[in-house]
């Protein structure tokens, strides 16, 4: 169980998060939607301390996440970025096994076997020995997901995983994510894919201006929003 209490973050004078409270149960899928600049990515990045919060706390199974245990916490919390951030000097398989080998100290042979199973899962076994530069965006993001999964995380964080993709490649990445949902992975997804959020989420939160404006079941927040700002946002997004 992941708990966020009164999380605050400011960049200089700009307050990006103004007190966020949220609880994510094991196996739950939480989608975060909202306009750009609403603080949703910052909130996600505060969970694994890629951003240092200015106030509040994050606990996982009642253990406070801080600078001292962060490397260990991160091994249990996979993250997928908007821009993939694959390591360009490594092959696809090397990308996937880098952390298991160098952080978890698993032997290269063992990690490679596990890595190939993961690549099979994301449908990219035949790309194991090529460099990321020769992959399409959708393939890159699937490798990035496999790389995060290689650490056998308990929670997966997705930071707008399909926002940098050409439209025809969004589907293949969402399919991989849906498969993860089916396996019962705990997931926190910052996304603009309203349809996806509706289909897979246990809970949706709508953020604006550093606050959680509205939260609830997908059909509550996405189909019958109560708050003015949510209605406004959804009307703009769903038109497209």
């Amino acid at each position, binding site marked *: 169980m992941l708990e966020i209490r009164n999380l605050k973050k400011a960049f200089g004078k700009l307050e990006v998060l103004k007190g966020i409270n949220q609880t994510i149960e094991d196996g739950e899928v939480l989608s975060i939607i909202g306009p750009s600049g609403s603080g949703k990515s910052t909130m996600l990045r505060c969970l694994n301390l*890629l951003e240092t919060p200015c106030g509040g706390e994050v606990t996982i199974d009642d253990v406070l996440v801080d600078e001292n245990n962060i490397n260990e916490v991160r091994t249990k919390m996979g*993250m997928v*970025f908007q*821009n993939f*951030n694959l390591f360009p*000097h490594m092959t696809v398989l090397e990308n996937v096994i*880098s952390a298991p080998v160098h*952080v978890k100290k698993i032997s290269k042979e063992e990690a490679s076997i596990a890595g190939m199973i993961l690549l099979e899962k994301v449908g990219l076994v035949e790309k194991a020995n090529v460099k990321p*530069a020769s992959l399409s965006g959708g393939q890159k993001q699937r490798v990035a997901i496999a790389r995060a999964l290689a650490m056998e995380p308990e929670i997966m964080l997705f930071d707008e995983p399909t926002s940098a993709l050409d439209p025809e490649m969004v589907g293949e990445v969402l399919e991989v994510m849906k498969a993860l949902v089916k396996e019962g992975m705990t997931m926190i997804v910052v996304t603009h894919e309203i349809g996806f959020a509706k289909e897979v989420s246990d809970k949706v939160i709508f953020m604006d201006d550093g606050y959680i404006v509205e939260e609830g079941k997908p059909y509550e927040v996405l189909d019958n929003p109560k708050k003015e700002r949510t209605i406004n946002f959804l009307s703009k997004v769903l038109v497209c």
Partner: protein
Amino acid sequence: MQLYIQGFLVALKGVPMTLGVSLFAVAVGAAFGLCLALMRISQSKVLAFLAKIYVDIVRGTPLVVQALIFAYGLPQLLQASGIMFKWSSLLLPAMLVCAFNSSAYLSEVIRGGIQAVEHGQMEAARSLGMSKSKAMRLVIMPQAIKIILPAFGNEFVALIKETAVLSYVGIVEILRRGTLWNAATFETFPAYIGVALVYMLLTIPLSKTVGYFEKKMSEDDTHEIKAA
């Protein structure tokens, strides 16, 4: 013509010394420069400040002055304060001063190379649980080295020319060979033309080689971008 050939051959004898000192300076300078670069980008303000001061001082003074301070000034200072100190060979301070000098320039190149690697790479590595130093070693440096390596070559070429000032502290390298021959023969023009030719013979092919690899690497990059 005979005189020019002779002048050239005399200067040629200085090549091993010039190349040896330059190579040593680049190699040690690269290692020390890496430390300086890591200090500059570290979280610690004190370390960053110290590295910056060092780089500013070294880059703000001529190599010949640094060489004179090291070779002659330092022993004098130590002797004046009652410590018996004499360089067993002036080659030692000459090599060290070139290495220190190089480290300052190379540290800036290394820092630039590290900072040119996209910020998301560090984040991705850290998000997988890698410590900062592990991320640096496994993810950042292998990418930065591509940017840094050509600069090492250029620094080597520059050093080959700059080590000429070591003749001021009695190192018998290319220029010193010519100067000595001139003093003995008074063939001033052939002596220094010979010296110039030898330097050209070293620097021009070397910088062409560096340029070739630089171009090749940037072509590799554009190729990768196209493929992506």
